[in-house]
């Protein structure tokens, strides 16, 4: 090793970290953990709410569809009853005439 390299080794020797450096790093890890402790349950709750909302919307849509189908079925039944009634009345009128 020559003189220049020896001088470089001296000039670039490691410097001590600023006072309180380790404490500041550890404080940042605590803050990171606290943020994670808040955001993970918050994200989970938000996820549950969104899922619940989607399920609710789907249930409402299914209910609406069931109601529509029921009304259609009732309309068809009413028509059939009306048709049967008119047929019965016609038959009764024929019997009375005879």
């Amino acid at each position, binding site marked *: 090793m020559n*003189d*220049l*390299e*020896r*001088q*470089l*080794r*001296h*000039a*670039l*020797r*490691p*410097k*001590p*970290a*600023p006072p309180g*450096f*380790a404490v*500041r*790093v*550890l404080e*940042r*890890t605590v803050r*990171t953990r606290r943020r994670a402790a808040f955001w993970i349950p918050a994200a989970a709750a938000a996820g549950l709410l969104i899922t619940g909302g989607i399920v609710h919307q789907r249930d409402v849509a299914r209910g609406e569809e069931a109601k529509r189908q029921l009304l259609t079925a009732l309309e068809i039944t009413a028509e059939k009853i009306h048709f049967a009634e008119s047929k019965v009345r016609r038959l009764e009128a024929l019997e009375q005439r005879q």
Partner: protein
Amino acid sequence: MEADFAELVRANESQVYSLAWHYLRNRPRAEELAQDVFLDLYRNLGAIQSEDHARHWLRVAICRRCLDETRRRRFEPVNGLDHAPEPAGPAEPGDPLLADFLERMVASLGGPARMVMILRYQEDLDPADIAAVLDMPLATVKSHLHRSLEKLREKLTRKGVKA
């Protein structure tokens, strides 16, 4: 885990901070980058197998952060060679003026060459280890070292300093 991490910070804070400081020559930014790197280590603590592994991991991480910093041109060290007090006459070992002058000259080198010099003379790594840390071909590392030393010698000679 917390105690292990605190121990890793204390054992490596000087190495990590010094690498950033010698590269950036800016105390607040060097501390910020060093803290970021320790925070990354904390997040990846599960993958760390030993103290040596942590030391290597930290060295690679801080070098990358520093190089990224200059690549993004967000930060260039204030070298101010013109403002550096000039050492005069033959260099004494441990001469603080010469040490400051050399630090500034190293800081005036281009990003990768500067990092190669810091790893060589701060960390005492041989060229093969430097190549591994910086993910750089060995020939490039050797060439950076050779050219940087030549440049420094030339500048010192021009200033009339015998080193």
